[in-house]
């Protein structure tokens, strides 16, 4: 079996600088000032989100000086903070556009801890920030037109693989190659569970879609696209529904077979804690319809089972360590080819994939072969 895993590098190669993080941020800021900015979906007053970006950037100096070290409460957050400091402290000059857009979520989390901003406000503001960036990445649909710049010969490259996986949200390779693509971080055309009227989440009494009018013109803002700074939190989101389904199955079975658990769940329905009440409601729903489950929209199980040959193109080792960890733990792989853009990636990838023998090829050679 031959598998290809590709990332944003392919969009930068054929779509140009529009797809760089710097352009995404500059376009996001400009987009927020345009008359057609979807204020009804993202934020009523777009200047608020621009102001938030300014506030986040203002924390960078303090972060680099260690002023946020005591707010990184978890091992994962500490690791991400150290990585942020390592990457940016060597830069002599920084501005709002030189901070990677996913790193803004790290700045946001740290600021929330410092200023004690909690849910639901923390969640809603984060969602607005996410939509602000997704709106820019989508670029009025231009991101889905990049395949028009692919050389015809590139079809031979995609055809050489049995399975295609990507961390991108666009459909360029799927449109161009007419092969199924698996979207590890979600895709613009796949709805997030909270916006799917048939999802288990929306069968519950506090259905999030009840108070939401979906504007299909901006379908991509309701998508399951994952954007965050940490591989750990991406992995948490990816596995969340599978884990929830497994728990619901076990609880529903126990409810039917174990009288003590049945009584406990019945008591939970009136518990003061909302999460406990929701758990009981979920179990009762599952008992009423055993087919009901949280939709697993990230093809993680399939990806952990890939075997034989893997080629990795246009995927940076930064921010996506969870994917590299999965590959490293995969004993079914016999050979891995990593196409690098910058020779500095070789060391980082060698460390991340130290269980495998790797072949490194300059990606420019690959693209030249298919021009």
């Amino acid at each position, binding site marked *: 079996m031959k598998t290809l895993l590709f990332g944003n590098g392919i969009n930068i190669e054929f779509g140009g600088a529009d797809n760089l993080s*710097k352009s995404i941020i*500059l376009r996001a*800021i*400009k987009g927020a000032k345009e008359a057609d900015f979807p204020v009804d979906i993202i934020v009523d007053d777009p*200047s608020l989100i*621009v*102001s*938030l*970006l*300014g*506030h986040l*950037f*203002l924390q*960078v*100096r303090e972060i*680099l000086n260690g002023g946020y070290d005591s707010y990184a409460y978890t091992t994962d957050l500490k690791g991400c903070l150290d990585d942020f400091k390592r990457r*940016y402290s060597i*830069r*002599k*000059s*920084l*501005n*709002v*556009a*030189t901070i990677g857009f996913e790193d803004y979520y790290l700045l946001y989390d740290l600021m929330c801890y410092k200023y004690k901003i909690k849910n639901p406000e923390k969640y809603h503001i984060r969602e607005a920030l996410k939509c602000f960036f997704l709106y820019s990445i989508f670029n009025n649909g231009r991101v889905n037109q990049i395949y028009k710049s692919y050389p015809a010969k590139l079809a031979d490259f995609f055809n050489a693989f049995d399975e295609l996986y990507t961390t991108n949200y666009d459909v360029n390779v799927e449109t161009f190659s007419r092969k199924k693509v698996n979207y590890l971080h979600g895709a613009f055309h796949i709805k997030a569970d909270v916006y799917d009227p048939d999802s288990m989440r929306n069968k519950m009494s506090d259905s999030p879609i009840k108070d939401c009018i979906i504007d299909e013109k901006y379908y991509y803002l309701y998508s399951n696209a994952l954007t965050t700074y940490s591989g750990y939190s991406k992995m948490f989101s990816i596995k969340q529904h599978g884990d929830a389904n497994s728990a619901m199955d076990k609880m529903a079975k126990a409810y039917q077979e174990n009288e003590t658990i049945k009584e406990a769940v019945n008591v939970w329905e009136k518990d003061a804690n909302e999460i406990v009440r929701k758990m009981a409601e979920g179990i009762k729903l599952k008992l009423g319809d055993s087919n009901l489950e949280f939709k697993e929209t990230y093809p993680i199980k399939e990806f952990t089972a890939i075997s034989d040959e893997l080629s990795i193109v246009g995927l940076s080792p930064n921010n996506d360590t969870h994917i590299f960890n999965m590959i490293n733990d995969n004993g079914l792989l016999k050979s891995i080819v990593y196409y690098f853009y910058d020779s500095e990636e070789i060391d980082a990838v060698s460390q991340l994939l130290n269980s495998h023998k790797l072949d490194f090829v300059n990606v420019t050679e690959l693209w030249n072969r298919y021009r």
Partner: protein
Amino acid sequence: MGIDKKIEIINALGIVIGSVMDATEAMTEYSSLTLPKKKYLYGEAHRILRRNNKPFNEAQPMMVVDIGVCAAENGVDPLTIMLANLNKGK
């Protein structure tokens, strides 16, 4: 104005706009610009500051973004743009 005082002011401006560049490096970057570029950046900075003529708490984050965009588009540090304003493009 003495050089020490000037460095102090530039460093303070750096804190206000979140620049990580040292004052002396910003002065070097500013000196390397052509006169038309200095004048252009002064005009941009002047426009940004006028546009954000609001209470400081409200103005600062917006100014940080506007100056940051200008810096990114012109390949200079945000502090160099503030320096262009301080020197009135000279």
